[in-house]
């Protein structure tokens, strides 16, 4: 960074020349498409969502300023308050289980041995499948009449009748988390592998020659040195889970009895079923501020 600054200053001093000016213009020209995309499709909508949240903004028709009604309304939105509790619960369980599974997988495939490449690919492959496809796949697989899981469990004597996979609130949550782990464990495993491979082998050798056993090596060396990578994975998992939408929309459709309605699903329903874009914008702003705050906090605490 300092290098670029001094270089540019020297260039500006020694040659306030046409060449320097033309390089500045050229730099801008190369960056211009980026600036247009970021300005029009990111900064402008950010400003717009703030403005929308201060207005009564129906899906069709004229917007009228009504601040702070959209924000006050949030406290009277029982569906959203329930969704907050549900989403936090879902996030906590998912993050713990997903991290555990991903860490286990990463430890199993971290060493270069014959066949390991195949297993890495096998664990990651579900990650290449989109959430909509994965949701529909599980929807079929867990169907009581069509899917293979119920007959398999019954043949093994584990259950005696078809399980209500998405028929009760707890089972719907359990099934969704299973789907999410299936889809994302390999992705998180890849993140952890990058961290594991950054640990120098000499550290392990030194520990081993000091007589440390595998458990000691894992808790005293691997985990502490993996901390930054684990932190990154936790942040991605928490953020992703708090904003969960696809899995619930496609797989449980919020049911049964609205027991699996996530925060983002409420935003979507407010906007496109209740046609209240202003209310949805206010919810968006709250989510946005909360998440940026949470991310900042997590990065500070975990890094």
């Amino acid at each position, binding site marked *: 960074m300092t290098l670029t600054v001094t270089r540019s200053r020297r260039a500006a001093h020694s040659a306030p020349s046409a060449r320097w000016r033309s390089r500045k213009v050229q730099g801008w020209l190369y960056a211009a498409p980026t600036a247009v995309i970021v300005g029009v499709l990111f900064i402008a*909508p950010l400003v717009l969502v703030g403005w929308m949240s201060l207005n009564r903004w129906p899906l069709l028709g004229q917007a009228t300023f009504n601040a702070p009604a959209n924000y006050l309304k949030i406290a009277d939105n029982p569906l959203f308050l329930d969704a907050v509790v549900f989403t936090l619960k879902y996030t906590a369980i998912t993050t713990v289980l997903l991290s555990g599974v991903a860490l286990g997988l990463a430890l199993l495939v971290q060493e270069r041995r014959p066949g390991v490449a195949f297993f890495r690919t096998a664990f990651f492959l*579900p990650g290449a499948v*989109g*959430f909509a496809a994965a949701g529909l796949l599980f929807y*079929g697989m867990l169907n009581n009449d069509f*899917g293979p899981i119920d007959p398999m469990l019954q043949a093994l004597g584990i259950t005696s009748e078809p399980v209500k996979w998405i028929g009760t609130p707890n089972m719907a949550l359990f099934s969704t988390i299973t789907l999410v782990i299936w889809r994302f464990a390999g992705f998180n495993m890849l*993140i952890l592998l990058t961290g594991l491979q950054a640990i120098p082998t000499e550290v392990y050798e030194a520990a081993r020659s000091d007589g440390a056993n595998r458990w000691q090596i894992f808790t005293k060396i691997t985990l502490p040195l993996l901390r930054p990578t684990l932190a990154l994975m936790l942040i991605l998992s928490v953020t992703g889970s708090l904003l969960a939408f696809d899995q619930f929309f496609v797989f449980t459709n919020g049911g049964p009895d609205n027991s699996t309605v996530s925060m983002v699903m409420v935003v979507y329903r407010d906007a496109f079923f209740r046609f209240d874009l202003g209310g949805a914008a206010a919810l*968006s702003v709250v*989510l946005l501020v909360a998440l940026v705050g949470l991310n900042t906090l997590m990065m500070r605490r975990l890094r």
Partner: protein
Amino acid sequence: MSRYLTLSALAVLFLFPLVWSGYVSLEEPSNYLEMARFGEGIDTYATNSLLVAVMTVGGTLIVSALGGYGFARFDFPGKNLLFLATLAILMVPYATILIPLYVLLGYLGLQNSLVGLSLVFVMFQLPFALFMMRNAFEALPRELEEAALVDGCGTFRAFWRILLHAVRPALITVGLFAFLASWNDFFAPLILLNDGSSFTLPVAVVSMTQHSFGAIDYGMLQAGVMVMAFPCLILFIVLQRHYVRGFMSGALRG
């Protein structure tokens, strides 16, 4: 040995759903015929998905390659601010920005348009893509373009003819990420497209479950799942080296 047993058992668990879906969809070939006739016809949806993917990949590559070069090799006022603003896209929850984007695309006459959807995808890809491309250009020796300049190329000619070839691995990585993201995304097309004939595959296939008043045809549904998943699986297997290298080179540490 016990490690390989564990690994094999786990691999069976992870691969089983994909194998099952492929198997039941193929069990009766009529599944695919019926699925193909659903709604506006699968060819319409597949074409839409493909168009969006091509525009997203193309747009992301063009914008990030130009931007990456600009950020790696030039100084200009506002450079750091623009870079930070681009990275800030990562901090903003996807869902919270889609509703204003829906309104904004309306102002621009791009609501319910595949072009508008692709532009939105390009924006979401940009932080990662720009970061990757900037690093790739920074890693190139300066002599490469100086030689070209001495030979009488303008900087743009040098960029186009020589430098782009030198950063091809990064271009492939960025393109693969952009393809998977745009092909698989469900939420953005659900919000931004509202006319059946412009649906992409994920929205169309999900609507198979929600618009049927009678029993859902699960075999047909799995045929739809396979049509969506197959290109991604193949592409990932062929290009996985680039994908993994994208991770390693700090794609996620931005």
